[in-house]
């Protein structure tokens, strides 16, 4: 053990343990009622965050099974394992699931769980909205998969281009379900974005001025702003599509003056930022894990933060690189080449800063850090192919081929799933109070790394050899058989790796080594409370003295005067985090679930009739009234000077 990891750190419970009476009071005011009703009413961000993560990982498993089915089908030429109709549903469901039901929600779930802990507060800013966001996401996912179970799975690809997805060429309800599912999940994403922005700006512990925010909080903040600007575009795309299908609006019908390319612009104006919405939280995780593994602050934090922000801005300026083959004017396209290439500058900056962070630190090679190393190697390759894809002539050759399939899996699995699995391992002790097995963890990283590369590396070559994406079969004479077989075998190894992770998690949840508060000797506030944290997160709201509060030389002081007999949080100013006032947050409520259900009535019912909108609107009105019904308990602002 090298010295930095043994630097003096704060054990707040020992010195700042409030009287048992106060704890009991906190438990009473922050607890959730027992029983099923209580379970449905919870507004605890940790409960909701865990639900997001578990639900998203379940969808990840489903998406993985779909991937496995595709790899089985493509393992040999002219395979009859899947018929074209089922294959098309499966690849559409795979993409839709992974993008909308796994990648975005899992990042949001970890944000919902950890941002309040990292900024040292007791709940997110809008706890009921948070509960609503989860329910609407869950209902959207169930809606999509119920459709799939009844042979109504999405079958026009995850970006469902018109006119193929329009009423004429996709007459069944498959695309209706897909389009409405988008609305479900985007509402959920917007809800989370708003909560996290407000929580970050208004509920940071005193002293956590904006420059002291941990990297993951920064990443979620940037992510949330991207969500605010990206999601409305896709809701417009899917909403117009739904209107075209439901009431014949002809937004995208070329025969009636509609424009199929408009759909592509709207979709990719969301679709490309979406990649960064998934990827930016992962970058935050990488910084957190590196800092803990090296036992010292991350190097170049201002550069890292600015990189995240500039990635977010640039991310909105390159959607056209998905459309180079549509015949847009060349000069216009060149701007998007520049923007697409420029994204490598902030990304490169981050990679250099991380390498510098590790430089000479003799890091601990525990599982989360091994995932980060895997991330580096895979993501570099994905980044390079990304820069290549910005070159229009080259893009035209490999666009919509297996080269692109390889590219975005390198970026998304390497760039997001590896850090995610690292972060899940890293935060597992906080989530459950127990450590994951290090031995199984190492095997997981090794199998996933090897399996991933064996699966996806040959796909680059397949793209050059003319294999388009989304083909359910190919001729034996095409010469693609060997590479496809290798890819399928690699997928099996990758699947074993993921399965091992699941086994490890399930076993460790019951039998893992007890973790203690801060098993990694990390510096951020989530480690300043018990594992798992109590419903009120922190017995005392801590005062943050610097960048790395738990590595601070002196004991952390804490806030007094916050009432324990109700759900009171300290509201601070956005930039300097000076205390501003106290706010009372709402407690458990069943109405978020019912509001979500009222919207579900509309989104499901419009499959058959536009009148469902009216019914849904009325139900929405009723449930929202109940949501806001005064409970006789004062909520809202209270000056901090009050005793």
């Amino acid at each position, binding site marked *: 053990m090298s010295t930095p990891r043994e630097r003096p750190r704060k054990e707040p419970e020992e010195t700042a343990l409030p009287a048992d009476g106060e704890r009991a009071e906190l438990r009473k005011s922050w607890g959730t009622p027992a029983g099923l009703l209580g379970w449905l009413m919870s507004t605890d961000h940790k409960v909701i965050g865990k639900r997001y993560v578990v639900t998203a990982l379940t969808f990840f498993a489903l998406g993985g099974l779909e991937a496995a089915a595709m790899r089985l089908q493509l393992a040999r030429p002219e395979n009859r394992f899947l018929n074209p109709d089922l294959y098309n549903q499966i690849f559409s469901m795979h993409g839709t699931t992974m993008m909308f039901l796994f990648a975005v929600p899992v990042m949001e779930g970890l944000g919902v769980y950890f941002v309040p802990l990292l900024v040292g507060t007791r709940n997110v800013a809008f706890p009921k909205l948070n509960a609503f966001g989860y329910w609407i996401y869950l209902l959207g996912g169930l809606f999509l998969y119920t459709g799939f179970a009844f042979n109504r799975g999405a079958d026009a690809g995850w970006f469902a*281009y018109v006119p193929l997805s329009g009423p004429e*060429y996709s007459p069944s309800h498959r695309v209706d379900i897909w389009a409405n599912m988008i609305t479900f999940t985007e509402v959920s994403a917007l809800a989370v974005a708003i909560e996290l922005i407000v929580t970050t700006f208004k509920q940071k512990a005193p002293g956590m001025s904006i420059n002291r925010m941990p990297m993951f909080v920064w990443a979620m903040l940037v992510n949330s702003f991207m969500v605010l600007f990206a999601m409305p575009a896709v809701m417009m795309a899917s909403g117009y599509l739904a209107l075209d299908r439901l009431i014949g609006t002809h937004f995208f019908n070329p025969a009636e003056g509609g424009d199929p390319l408009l759909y592509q612009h709207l979709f990719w104006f969301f679709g490309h930022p979406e990649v960064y919405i998934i990827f930016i939280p992962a970058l935050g995780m990488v910084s957190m894990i590196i800092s803990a593994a090296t036992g010292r602050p991350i190097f170049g934090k201002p550069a890292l933060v600015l990189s995240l922000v500039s990635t977010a801005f640039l991310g909105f300026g390159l959607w056209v690189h998905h459309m180079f*083959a549509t015949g847009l004017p060349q000069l216009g396209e060149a701007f998007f080449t520049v923007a697409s290439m420029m994204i490598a500058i902030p990304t490169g900056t981050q990679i250099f800063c991380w390498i510098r962070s590790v*430089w000479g630190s003799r890091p601990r090679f525990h599982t989360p850090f091994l995932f980060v190393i895997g991330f580096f190697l895979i993501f570099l390759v994905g980044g390079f192919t990304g820069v290549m894809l910005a*070159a229009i002539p080259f893009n*035209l050759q490999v666009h919509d081929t297996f080269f692109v399939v390889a590219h975005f899996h390198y970026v998304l699995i390497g760039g997001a799933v590896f850090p995610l699995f690292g972060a899940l391992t890293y935060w597992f002790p906080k989530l459950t109070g127990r450590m994951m097995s290090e031995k199984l963890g190492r095997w997981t990283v090794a199998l996933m790394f090897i399996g991933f590369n064996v699966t996806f590396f040959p796909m680059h070559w397949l793209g050059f*050899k003319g294999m388009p994406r989304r083909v359910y079969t190919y001729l034996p*004479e095409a010469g693609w058989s060997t590479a496809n077989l290798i890819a399928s075998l690699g997928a099996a190894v990758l699947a074993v790796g993921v399965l091992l992770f699941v086994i490890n998690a399930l076993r460790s949840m019951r039998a893992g080594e007890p973790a203690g508060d801060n098993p990694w000797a990390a510096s951020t506030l989530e480690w300043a409370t018990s594992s798992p944290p109590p419903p009120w997160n922190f017995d005392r709201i801590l005062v943050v003295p610097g960048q790395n509060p738990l590595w601070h030389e002196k004991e952390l002081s804490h806030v007094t005067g916050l009432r324990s007999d109700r759900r009171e949080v300290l509201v601070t100013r956005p930039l300097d985090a000076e205390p501003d006032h106290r706010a009372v947050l709402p407690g458990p409520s069943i109405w978020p679930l019912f509001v979500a259900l009222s919207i579900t009535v509309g989104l499901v019912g419009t499959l058959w009739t536009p009148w469902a909108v009216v019914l849904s609107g009325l139900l929405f009105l009723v449930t929202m009234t109940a949501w806001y019904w005064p409970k006789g308990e004062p909520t809202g602002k209270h000056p901090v000077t009050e005793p």
Partner: protein
Amino acid sequence: MKVPARAPFARASARGATALALIAAAGCRGIQSALDPAGREASRIAGLWWFLFWTCTAVFVVVTAALLVALFRRRTAQSADPKRGRALIVGAVGATAAILLLFLIVSVSAGRAVAEPAGPNVLRVQVTGHQWWWEIHYPGTPDNRDVVTANEIHVPVGRPVLLELTSADVIHSFWAPNFHGKKDLIPGLKNTHLFRAERPGVFRGQCAEFCGLEHAKMAFTIVADPPEKFDRWYESQLLPAAEPATPSETHGRDVFLSSPCMFCHSIKGTPAFGMEAPDLTHVASRHTLAAGTVPNNRGNLAGWIADPQSMKPGNHMPPMAMPGDDLLALTDYLESLK
């Protein structure tokens, strides 16, 4: 492929065998490969790729080496000095920007090269995408020398070819990797795509934009021929369909004209002028059937007529239930349409 009606037609024609051999050679000879260019544009792009590839490989090696050193190097006085780190990072970011600028220049110049105007000598070919086949039209106006065919484009080596692309239904994407990148076929829009074949040969391409059920089986053949050979082919395609030469062929034509076939297909010189499906005037001269799904031979042709849904499930051709004799005669007739 299991085709019920196949057994009586097992004899593959010489041309069918050639086609099979050509498709079979795809793997080794690269008749569908971006890295085995047969045209000016694809050559330029392949050159761009190799440049990008080697540069990125070099950067990957350097960055990975830096990472490994960072991971395993012992702590030194230098490693703790933040100033030194900052200078290195600024340098590395500067190098990144410089490489990107180089990429931009190389990319834009390649883009200009592949977008050079065609000149007056250009051969225009209209390609219309259908679910799931390609309609090919060589406009020969004003001399009424139009050629209509399907799923097979013949081009003269050395002469620029300007494809005019549109779609009759959903979005498709034209991709012949040996010649150029992709261009989308979008309903209501007309895109153009210019390429120039540099060596003769038979090449394969296929639809690259997901277009529904049989997207996987929407391929086409590009035959690049020396100009004289191309001209001969063009002249042969201008002719109306061959008259039946045998009683069986005559019977076959009667079967064709008395069945629903003629509502969708056309055969020039007969009353069949359906526009929904590929023109069959010279169907026997083509290399493949069902948009590159199978080699064009007698067995496959009969199998296709009898049970198209088995070879390409979901395609828009209904199965034709007819007595064995009629099927034989119809096959004889279509086989004669060179």
